[in-house]
């Protein structure tokens, strides 16, 4: 916002409340109410206003209190933002960023816990970014704001509170990360685990435990769901010959499904075992804490799947019944 006066932030509670999750703390004092705009509760309205402002020359950042509320505005995200550059044959580009927390939080119930990565990632014309660490968040958000296309920036509420070590480079004011490149968080040679957002943390924890048991897991932090970094994923699978995808969202038609299909297309001969995907449970998120815990993948699930494989897990479960 300091580099470009055309950038402004708009959303519910971004100004005087300092951000529903305090993300925009201090911005109102620094930039004033003209650039940090508190809106009434009108997702469809203010998202459309942001798109219209982007059509006409500004660079809005639209905040959704959670991405679940973006469903009220999804017509504008898809139809007036994502498709406009194509429909106008390049005349009207939409340099807008839609950001906010995505996915499950703690005990917030079914209507506040859905992960929208798969929904937005299937739409041509959008770029979908998912940060994990602070470095990711800083670099990817800067890239998203500078990008001339609509970007859906999916954060995670539980990660807001986590601290990560950052290098001095990251703190540089021109630091940006490229859109469309994944990061290999941990090198390994026995199995590739792809993850994004919170699941990267779980995958890293699982990888630490596996390392003690002699299994070296390569953890890929996807960072960019659309465009998906197929080359990094495939290079990794060709090295390790096994793939597990981890995600928090619903399993059917999820991110894991896309990654598995693309790896089968590109690297079938290199696979030594079937591709596996771990996803959230195929149910709306329950409220009860114990049920919620088993609706979202945990470190134990990653460990078990890595060591044993899906067919054997199912066989054992069936035997247990």
């Amino acid at each position, binding site marked *: 916002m300091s580099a470009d006066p055309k950038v402004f932030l708009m959303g519910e509670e971004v100004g005087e409340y300092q951000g529903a999750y305090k993300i925009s703390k201090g911005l109102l004092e620094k930039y004033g109410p003209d650039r940090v705009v508190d809106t*009434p509760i009108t997702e469809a309205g203010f998202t459309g206003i942001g798109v219209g*402002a982007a059509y006409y020359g500004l660079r809005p950042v639209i905040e959704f209190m959670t991405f679940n509320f973006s469903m009220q505005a999804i017509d504008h995200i898809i139809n007036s933002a994502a498709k406009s550059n194509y429909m106008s044959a390049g005349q009207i580009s939409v340099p807008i960023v839609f950001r906010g927390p995505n996915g499950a939080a703690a005990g917030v119930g079914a209507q506040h816990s859905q992960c929208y990565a798969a929904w937005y990632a299937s739409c041509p014309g959008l*770029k979908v970014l998912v940060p994990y660490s602070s470095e990711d968040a800083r670099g990817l958000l800067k890239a998203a704001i500078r990008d001339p296309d609509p970007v859906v920036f999916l954060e995670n509420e539980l990660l807001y509170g986590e601290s990560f070590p950052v290098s001095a480079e990251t703190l540089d004011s021109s630091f940006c990360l490229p859109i469309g490149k994944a990061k290999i968080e941990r090198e390994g040679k026995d199995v590739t685990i792809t993850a994004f957002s919170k699941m990267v943390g779980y995958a890293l924890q699982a990888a630490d435990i596996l390392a003690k048991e002699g299994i070296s897991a390569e953890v890929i932090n996807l960072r960019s769901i659309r*465009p998906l970094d197929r080359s990094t994923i495939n290079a990794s699978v060709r090295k390790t010959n096994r793939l597990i995808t981890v995600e928090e969202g619903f399993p059917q038609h999820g991110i894991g499904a896309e990654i598995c299909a693309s790896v089968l297309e590109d690297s079938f001969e290199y696979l030594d075992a079937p591709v596996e995907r771990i996803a959230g449970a195929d149910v709306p998120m329950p409220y009860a804490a114990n049920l919620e815990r088993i609706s979202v993948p945990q470190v134990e699930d990653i460990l078990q799947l890595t060591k044993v494989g899906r067919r054997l897990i199912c066989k054992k479960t069936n035997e247990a019944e």
Partner: protein
Amino acid sequence: MACSATAKIIQPPMSINSTRSPDKSDNCTKLLCPSSFLGPNKKLFSINKTISPLSRRSATVVAVSSDVVKKKKVESNPVSNLLVTKEEGLELYEDMVLGRSFEDMCAQMYYRGKMFGFVHLYNGQEAVSTGFIKLLGNRDCVVSTYRDHVHALSKGVPARAVMSELFGKTTGCCRGQGGSMHMFSKEHNVLGGFAFIGEGIPVATGAAFTSKYRREVLKEDCDDVTLAFFGDGTCNNGQFFECLNMAALWKLPIVFVVENNLWAIGMSHLRATSDPQIWKKGPAFGMPGVHVDGMDVLKVREIAKEAITRARRGEGPTLVECETYRFRGHSLADPDELRDPSEKAHYATRDPITALKKYLLENNLASESELIAIEKKIEEVVEDAVEFADESPVPARSQLLENVFADPRGFGIGPDGKYRCEDPKFTEGTAQV
């Protein structure tokens, strides 16, 4: 001569509405009568009752809250009392005839198979488009719905470009990628063309937000106004109300123009709306709501002048309800069986082009031959547009994947002309952006 000119003016150009009853001092008390609605006694909407020109204008203004709109305008030409000069009159006539001929040609081309998909024609509503858009400058924006051909034409997009776009050729205004419902032009500031009703309203509000932001934050000299066109059906949609609220709250330079043609495909406005008087929804949000006869381009133009000036001065939005009618069905695929033929006949007598022609001739602003010359000229323009579109090539196959993103690599192009993400220093985080 002045006396007789004045005497002529005293009769409103659209003197055909003889069915208006004299006792309508307060049309709010007229209750819904669906059976009489479909006939000529549409008392619900007509409020033009007075005779003299000055009070006629104020009578068309039914603003409940704002004195701004009610104030009497000073005549631009004190000698003649006419609403337009000759040049303006001819410009309006030409624009309306262009709209009508173009749409008629679209129908022909559709039935010959050259146009396909959804085509929504604007016949009958030309007064609204011409009345408003001809008052705008190039930098002002227009946002419309799927019935957007004539809005694009009025704003200045060449007929050739629009016709090619409809034929799906690569020379169209959107290179054939948009189609009938998605007319975009950056050069003329036509920001679409939206298929979902109500979708254009927030986008228009956003463009108005940009005008205000430019003026107040970026300190540019910007007084661009945005016009949002939409129909009666849209006025029941949530996004409409959200935007009325925010536009009034932030005093955005926008005019919400309702083209109330009484029908949303086959759904009559009365069957769909609890209170069919749309102009009333403006004051509920703190902006003036105005009702105007949308079949009379001069009346529309007068109201438009006020609303647009208001917006330019920074006084905020206005809601203008134009009572109009579409002579054809909702789209070319619509058999149009639900509308009463007598209603259609009634509105056919109020054709805006015929009315303007009559006004120009009666007030000696133009001669018959000048008007016929204009009509001939437009015929040629439209024929030329069809020929051009016919002869244009279809898009190349490689065009399929173009223009999905403005910057496919995600970072833009640096000052040296190369993609930034290919600069290794950039991804290390120390490059200058």
